[in-house]
């Protein structure tokens, strides 16, 4: 895999990453950062999201229930599990995208640096400015590459030079060298993998703190997938990343922590409700999970 840019990613907020050392050397290992310890000992400033007793309903249907987990800063947290287990539903709670689905209702609390995102005083639009999202299917706007990246900064009326913002975002997304000569061309002409990196660049152009990725590689070929995974390791230094994936190898490769979800069949109504089974360091989930269901899933005996 060639690295198109060897310039270090510009870190305006140097305090975010105190070491300043690129831990790219750890690429390929399940757990990149060995310094993580148990939840109780983590200072609360490092916890970005604290999910408490989360239930999500679509109309009468309970999609997922009793989710409790904590997402730490500058880590990659992966959600895995079989289809319909509610992992995407939970992910969409972090930027309140579930609000857009008719009939969706959220119970419990999603604390973002201690602030409940579902407090009635919270403006979901402001939430989404701080928490970016990348979707399963690349969805660039039918505009030029430049206008795609500049879209977010223009919304917030950024005073910064847009050219700089666009270049920086494209460099961070490892796309700059491929598109720098055709910024004014339509983004629809890019390949699927390039489109997805464009979407990542578009998301980071507004400088969010968190990036949510909903199966970002499922529409891509293995080479494009590898590029996105490399990219995620790079972005980890500046952003907190949550990724939903169907691909267990991917979760093992990229994430620091993994949440395994599964479905439970309600004996009375026959409805399937998603549940969080186990949430731990990725290494543990894939080598010595506590729960038998996790073990069955990661070893391929189920799902």
């Amino acid at each position, binding site marked *: 895999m060639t690295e198109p840019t060897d310039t270090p990613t510009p870190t305006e907020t140097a305090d975010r990453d105190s070491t300043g050392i690129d831990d790219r050397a750890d690429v390929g290992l399940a757990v990149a950062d060995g310094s993580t310890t148990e939840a109780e000992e983590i200072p609360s400033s490092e916890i970005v999201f604290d999910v408490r007793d989360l239930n999500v309903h679509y109309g009468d249907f309970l999609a997922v229930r009793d989710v409790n987990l904590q997402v730490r800063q500058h880590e990659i947290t992966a959600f895995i599990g079989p289809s319909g287990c509610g992992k995407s539903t939970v992910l969409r709670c972090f930027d309140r*995208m579930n609000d857009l689905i008719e009939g969706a209702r959220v119970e419990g609390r999603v604390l973002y640096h201690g602030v409940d995102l579902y407090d009635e005083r919270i403006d979901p*639009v402001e939430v989404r*400015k701080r928490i970016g999202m990348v979707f399963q299917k690349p969805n660039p*706007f039918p505009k*030029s590459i430049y206008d795609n990246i500049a*879209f*977010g900064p223009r919304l917030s009326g950024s005073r910064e030079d847009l050219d700089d913002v666009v270049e920086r975002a494209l460099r961070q997304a490892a796309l700059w060298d491929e598109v720098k000569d055709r910024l004014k061309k*339509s983004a629809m002409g890019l390949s699927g993998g390039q489109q997805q990196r464009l979407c990542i660049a578009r998301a980071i152009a*507004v400088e969010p703190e968190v990036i949510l990725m909903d199966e970002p590689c499922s529409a891509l070929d293995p080479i494009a997938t590898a590029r996105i995974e490399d990219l995620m390791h790079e972005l980890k230094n500046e952003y907190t990343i949550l990724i939903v994936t169907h691909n267990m190898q991917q979760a093992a490769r990229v994430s620091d922590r993994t949440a395994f979800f599964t479905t439970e069949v309600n004996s009375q109504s026959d409805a399937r409700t998603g549940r969080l089974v186990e949430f731990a360091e990725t290494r543990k989930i894939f080598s010595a999970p506590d729960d038998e269901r996790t073990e069955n899933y990661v070893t391929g005996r189920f799902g």
Partner: protein
Amino acid sequence: MSDLLQHPDTGDLLLRDTTRRSRRVRNRLATIWMAGSLVVAVVPLALVVGYVVAKGIGQLTPDWFTKDLPAVTRRAGGGMGPAIVGTLLITAVAAAMAIPLGVLGAIYLHEYGGRGRVARLIRFMADVMTGVPSIVMGLFVYTIWTINRGLSAFGGALALGCLMLPIIIRSTEEMLRLVPDELRQASYALGNRKWRTIVTVVLPASFGGITSGVMLAIARAAGETAPLVFTIGAARKLNLRIFDGPSTALSVQIFGNAQTPFEAAQARAWGAALTLVAIVFVLTILARVISARVARRHNA
């Protein structure tokens, strides 16, 4: 080849079935039928255009575009200036009323109303309105406007606007439906508000299609006669005061002149017909150019 033919089992199966006679005949018949349908469809169209051009082209002198209508229709001379301006003016005023209303209405229907009761009712009414004969629309405007305010260009524009409105609403809504939901999601995920998502993402993505629909509505309205006959009257001179006094339009002039037994008037009707076709033609080309240019900007 000969090996293949001689193979006992597969040879026959693999060969192209052009040798069998009934199949060849059926193929030929189907081709002729389809080509024939095309000719039948194109011939009247070509005849109409050709006839209008042949009969009308002689009228198109410089005077035709500038002079007032003659005082006496049976004599040659004069021009069609007031009717040309009238058609453009009335259509423009109608478009100025119907386009914003129609596009905004469609945005409401698709982006806000959804499957709600109000939206369903409006959609149904728009469908019904599309089917209302244009003369009924003229009669409607006649009773609510012309009877009280007298003949005027604005009355005609009201009637044409009412005709255009449902076409614009329905075609625009269809175009908005074609905008993938993923684009809206992408916009929301960047912290864009709903109204701004519509302005910055949905409308640009559907601009070409909306323009085509709008132009279609304009082209259709520009040729309407019935609603104008009893709302704008038949002025002989140019009248730019749209609220005040009778006006005229090409379609009305065609109607009036073609009914007379006088050769000069009939020639004038042909000239007006050619002019009207030309205007609609130009509008259609314009619509194509605009939507192609926008599409190119988005999908270069």
